[in-house]
């Protein structure tokens, strides 16, 4: 009996011991690189995709994107083979691929021409044209010269012929700013450069201008204008290039059914004017007016004989697409239809055409015609010269997820055609014949992410709990019951673990589940997941990261592994919404049936007005009864308000705007009577600051007034204009200074300790002012000798200046941005300092440093320890001035983003996270940025305080690179979120790439170390239990015998 009791007790304690360990099985291991973090390399939305056949079997896909990236993609998988990131303001304007070389032309006035090795992505040679005062915006084009490695390009305001290895052009022709030249057409002996002519008073109508230049000598042969009313880049103009016939421009005037064809170089214009029957198809004038022209295979090498283009038009509300071929019949130029395709649907959302290379191996190059029907389906057909399609395919796709298809490209993998469709939302999907699922896809919308919010997910519900909830929800009212159910579940899982042979014989759970904790998905499931992610984990590592993008896509990804939960495309009148902010306005509430919500705020591209959408954060559907709201104003500022609408149980979002009377107002969303009351109940007084963005010369502060009359709130509706904001103060920047950026706390002001403990155990009290904002200004012009950066710390409530300084010889450019972050009582900012030789010569002053400088300003209530403002409330009107201690450091590298880690109770120290331009995510401890670091050997007190002697360089310690071997390109934002473990913070970096990881700035003090042997613990516990079982009866027997002796 006794033995039985002790056995069950031992078993229970063993179960408890094992059970309590099982939850730690997810613990953090330093060697889990790639398991605790994930990286998604992206390229941006392709502006041009060029398939290129290296030989008969190998094909490559080359893309230039709107995120200034040149990439080579694997045609079979869509993976990035290599990519090259260009500067932030270096738009790539041209891409040509030939003979294993890729040619790019990028930049605006300062133009770069580069030739890359198509296989390896390494730079073969490049040419840089310095800025030209005559440069006309939009100019820039480049072509390979056939039969040589030379390149002809429009760089700056010149047409140049470049040859590899030479630093100066073979010849250079100044274009004298007469047009924005966007097209280079090469013939055997001539170069034609075509552009949009400059509009003058005498000649105000748009037209094209051509300059013909001798290819060999660079001599200008002629210069003339043609095609009145036309622009080079228009959907009514195509260029046809043929070795045999020469180069032609074909166009149709707007609202006119007459065709025009012009042979380039015919100075005595050879106009060949046609009527609607140009392409030997009877067209009604109405149909003709809807026609759109598409250029295909414009490379003359591909079109030795018959250059082709494609035309689409609407006939009887159905789209018709025809492929047109140009040929000569005697002296006469003729065009004929070689293939046609009619869409079955009345409305077509988008259309794209492409053709593959024609060569000896593939004499009848196919053309793909892709038509997107309104009914969420992409159907495509590939034609050769016959009228029946050789390949067809369908792709089940909802345009509510990535927007309508806008273009298509055809390429071949192993002789089989693939159609690459691109949507306006940023999806690139490769389709194969006979399959409704894409072969691969790339979601490039997230390379345009503008904002991101973390959504906490509820812990996984045990199946016992789930079953109990389904049968009798009242059972779960008691926490004890829930606890017992959870334990029952744990015991069950232990039993199954033991019966399965301790996991040795079962399939590895990691293989089945994957790093994301989600079952491995197929391509189609990953594109459009059937079941969204609704449960997190016990530690808060798995949350949803909800991204808003400027392409109109809102996407929710798991922070673990990055698997997709849902995607939604927001469009206003068919055009994508430019999403700017994402707020979680209703959190997951335990035991509540109301779903969490995200409020997405953006701008309509058509009208510029504010657009608000409230989405279910778990499914991406619009929240009950809501739809996309286009507000009658354009907001200047948006923020979360600490008020909850009692009726909808939704947090309020505040939108600052100016009404037509130029009155500044604060609108709220949801804009209902109950929300207005909730706002006035909690938020008085409310202040906000406003400026006209970068370049403005002042900053104004406003105070929001709630109406005195309660009835006004009762009658509040969606159409009500917002609360009036009365101007309280105006902060005029000194003359000659313009605003660069404003930085606030953004929620990072909370702290665990109100003061800084010094070595002698006295306290320096932190100056914690949530209204603090840091302004950075540009002082003087960059060319002037007195240029610099001004720093102003201002109170947002009163507009009072708390601290200011000027950094001389510093400047801000797109490549050398000003970055700032506020955390607790600390402001950290980084900028580029030109350095001044004068200062260097004099005293070795910090202004002498040439490089990136990181400045830290620590704000304390007083310079004397143990001195504190004793009032219980901090009012900005008390005008407390901080005591500011500053220090400057030399930053290791150029950075593009700054962030700071966050933990649940702010007890762990914070790490400052730098997103470096070289693609590293560097996490440096907070203590390195202490402005009190002594500039000599530390005293005993300073040592006790943990102050490290000052050293100017911030070391790039490889052990502190969170991104380890990943190159996270183009980081624009770094966000952090706390987990349920105080030691651990989630860190997310986004920009071009996405990178998620977690970090423990103070060490993993609340987790078992990786070397902890659970096997040892279990074995020891078991051994002790067995020892008790065996030893117990023996001891009892001995005691009994002793009593008898």
């Amino acid at each position: 009996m006794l033995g039985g009791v002790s056995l069950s007790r031992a078993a229970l304690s063993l179960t408890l011991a094992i059970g309590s360990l099982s939850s730690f099985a997810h613990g953090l291991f330093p060697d889990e690189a790639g398991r605790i973090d994930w990286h998604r390399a992206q390229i941006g939305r392709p502006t041009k995709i060029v398939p290129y056949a290296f030989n008969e079997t190998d094909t490559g896909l080359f893309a230039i994107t709107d995120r200034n990236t040149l990439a080579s993609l694997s045609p079979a998988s869509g993976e990035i083979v290599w990519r090259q990131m260009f500067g932030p303001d270096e738009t790539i304007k041209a891409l040509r691929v030939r003979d294993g070389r890729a040619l790019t032309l990028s930049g605006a006035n300062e133009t770069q021409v580069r030739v890359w090795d198509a296989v390896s992505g390494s730079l073969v040679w490049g040419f840089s044209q310095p800025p030209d005062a005559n440069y006309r915006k939009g100019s820039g084009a480049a072509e390979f010269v056939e039969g040589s490695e030379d390149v002809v390009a429009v760089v700056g305001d010149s047409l140049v012929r470049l040859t590899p290895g030479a630093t100066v052009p073979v010849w250079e022709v100044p274009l004298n700013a007469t047009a924005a030249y966007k097209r280079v057409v090469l013939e055997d002996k001539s170069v034609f450069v075509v552009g949009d002519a400059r509009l003058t008073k005498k000649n105000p109508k748009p037209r094209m201008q051509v300059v013909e230049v001798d290819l060999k000598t660079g001599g200008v042969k002629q210069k003339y204008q043609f095609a009145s009313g036309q622009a080079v880049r228009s959907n009514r103009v195509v260029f046809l290039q043929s070795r045999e016939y020469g180069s032609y421009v074909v166009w149709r005037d707007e609202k006119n059914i007459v065709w025009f064809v012009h042979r380039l170089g015919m100075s005595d214009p050879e106009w060949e004017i046609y009527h609607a029957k140009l392409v030997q198809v009877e067209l009604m004038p109405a149909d003709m007016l809807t026609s759109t022209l598409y250029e295909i295979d414009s490379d003359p090498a591909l079109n030795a004989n018959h250059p082709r283009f494609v035309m689409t038009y609407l006939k009887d509300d159905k789209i018709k697409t025809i492929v047109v071929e140009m040929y000569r019949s005697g002296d006469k130029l003729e065009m004929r239809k070689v293939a046609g395709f009619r869409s079955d649907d009345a409305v077509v959302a988008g259309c794209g055409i492409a053709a593959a290379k024609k060569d000896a191996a593939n004499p009848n190059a196919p053309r793909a015609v892709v038509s997107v029907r309104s009914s969420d389906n992409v159907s495509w057909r590939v034609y050769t010269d016959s009228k029946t399609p050789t390949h067809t395919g369908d792709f089940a796709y909802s345009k509510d997820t990535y927007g309508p298809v806008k273009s298509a490209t055809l390429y071949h993998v192993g002789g089989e055609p693939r159609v690459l469709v691109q949507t306006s939302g940023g999806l690139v999907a490769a389709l194969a014949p006979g399959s409704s699922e894409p072969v691969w896809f790339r979601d490039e919308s997230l390379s345009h992410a503008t904002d991101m919010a973390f959504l906490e997910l509820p812990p996984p519900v045990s199946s016992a709990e789930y079953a109990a909830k389904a049968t009798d929800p009242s059972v779960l009212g008691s926490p004890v019951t829930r606890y017992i159910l959870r334990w029952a579940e744990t015991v069950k899982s232990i039993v199954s673990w033991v019966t399965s042979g301790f996991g040795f014989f079962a399939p590895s759970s990691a293989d089945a589940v994957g790093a994301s904790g989600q079952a491995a998905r197929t391509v189609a499931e990953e594109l459009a997941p059937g079941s969204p992610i609704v449960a997190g984990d016990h530690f808060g590592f798995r949350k949803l990261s909800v991204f808003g993008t400027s392409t109109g896509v809102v996407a929710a990804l798991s922070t673990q592994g990055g698997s997709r939960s849902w995607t939604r495309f927001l469009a206003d009148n068919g055009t994508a919404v430019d999403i700017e902010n994402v707020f979680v306005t209703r959190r997951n509430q335990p035991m509540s049936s109301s779903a969490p919500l995200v409020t997405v705020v953006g701008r309509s591209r058509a009208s510029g007005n504010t657009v608000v959408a409230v989405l279910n954060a778990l499914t991406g559907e619009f929240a009950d009864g809501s739809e996309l709201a286009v507000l009658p104003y354009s907001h200047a500022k948006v923020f979360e308000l600490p008020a909850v609408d009692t009726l909808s149980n939704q947090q309020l979002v505040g939108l600052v705007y100016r009404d037509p009377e130029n009155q500044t107002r604060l609108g709220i969303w949801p804009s209902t009577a109950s929300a207005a009351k909730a706002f006035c109940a909690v938020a008085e007084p409310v202040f906000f600051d406003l400026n006209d963005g970068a370049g403005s010369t002042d900053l104004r502060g406003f105070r929001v007034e709630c109406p005195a009359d309660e009835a006004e709130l009762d009658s509040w509706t969606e159409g009500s204009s917002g609360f009036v904001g009365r101007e309280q103060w105006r902060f005029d920047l000194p003359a000659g200074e313009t605003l660069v950026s404003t930085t606030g706390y953004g929620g990072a002001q909370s702290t665990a300790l109100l003061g800084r403990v010094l070595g002698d155990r006295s306290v320096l009290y932190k100056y914690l002012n949530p209204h603090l904002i840091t302004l950075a200004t540009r002082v003087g012009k960059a060319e002037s000798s007195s240029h610099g950066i001004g720093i102003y710390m201002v109170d947002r409530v009163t507009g009072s200046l708390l601290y200011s300084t000027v950094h001389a010889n510093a400047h801000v450019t797109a490549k050398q941005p000003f970055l700032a972050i506020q955390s607790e009582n600390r402001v950290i900012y980084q900028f580029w300092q030109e350095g001044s030789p004068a200062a260097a010569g004099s005293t070795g002053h910090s202004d002498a440093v040439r490089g990136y400088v990181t400045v830290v300003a620590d704000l304390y209530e007083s310079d004397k320890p143990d001195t504190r403002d004793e009032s219980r409330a901090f009012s900005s009107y008390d005008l407390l001035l901080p005591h500011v201690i500053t220090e400057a450091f030399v930053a290791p590298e150029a950075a593009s983003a700054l962030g700071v880690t966050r933990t649940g109770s702010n007890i762990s120290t914070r790490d400052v996270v730098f997103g470096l331009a070289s693609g590293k995510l560097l996490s440096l401890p907070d203590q390195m940025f202490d402005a009190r670091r002594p500039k000599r050997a530390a005293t005993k007190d300073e040592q006790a305080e943990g102050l490290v002697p000052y050293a100017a360089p911030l070391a790039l310690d490889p052990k502190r690179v969170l991104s380890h071997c990943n190159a996270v390109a183009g980081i624009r934002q770094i966000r952090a979120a706390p987990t349920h473990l105080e030691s651990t913070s989630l860190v997310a970096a986004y920009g071009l790439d996405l990178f998620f990881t977690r970090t423990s700035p103070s060490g993993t003090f609340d987790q078992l170390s990786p070397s902890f042997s659970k096997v040892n613990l279990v074995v020891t516990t078991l051994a002790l239990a067995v020892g008790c079982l065996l030893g117990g009866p023996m001891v009892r027997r001995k005691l009994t015998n002793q009593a008898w002796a």
Partner: protein
Amino acid sequence: MPSTARVYADFTSLTKHSKPTARGGPIDPHGFDAALASSASSAVSSGSAHKDDQTDQMLRAKKAWEVAMGPAKTLPMQAFMAWMSGTGVSIFSILITAMILMTPLRTIMTVQQTFAPLERVAKGRPALDLTMQKAAFVAINIAGVLFAVYRLSIMGLLPTASSDWLAFIPAKTYPELSF
């Protein structure tokens, strides 16, 4: 005729003041000192016994002073140990300090038991007055405690600095909201 008289010793008649008589009676054995043998019952009431009492009390008081001064002798040793263990906060120095602190405290608690054997005289008689000794004993131990407290303070273990109360200071409230 042989004498039939038998020699016997009868200790039952042994009394304190009995003296050997000429006529006979029990003869004390050699070396027997009747006074010594019966002293246990006779000493208290005699006059010389009273004189002994005073000596005894004096001795007890002296002994009590020795007991009272005992802790003072250990103080230098403790101070030495404390000096050896240093002022850093480590397990060893904390153990030493705890010992220095707890020993006098525990001793003060047991002051009555410590002096009880010395002040108890006999049943029904008033106890010896050892107030001064006890006071000295307590004072010396308090000095020990004070030394321990001083040591705690130089080790930084006393919550005397403002930083020790930092965590308990309520955070300020912010009446204004700004965005």
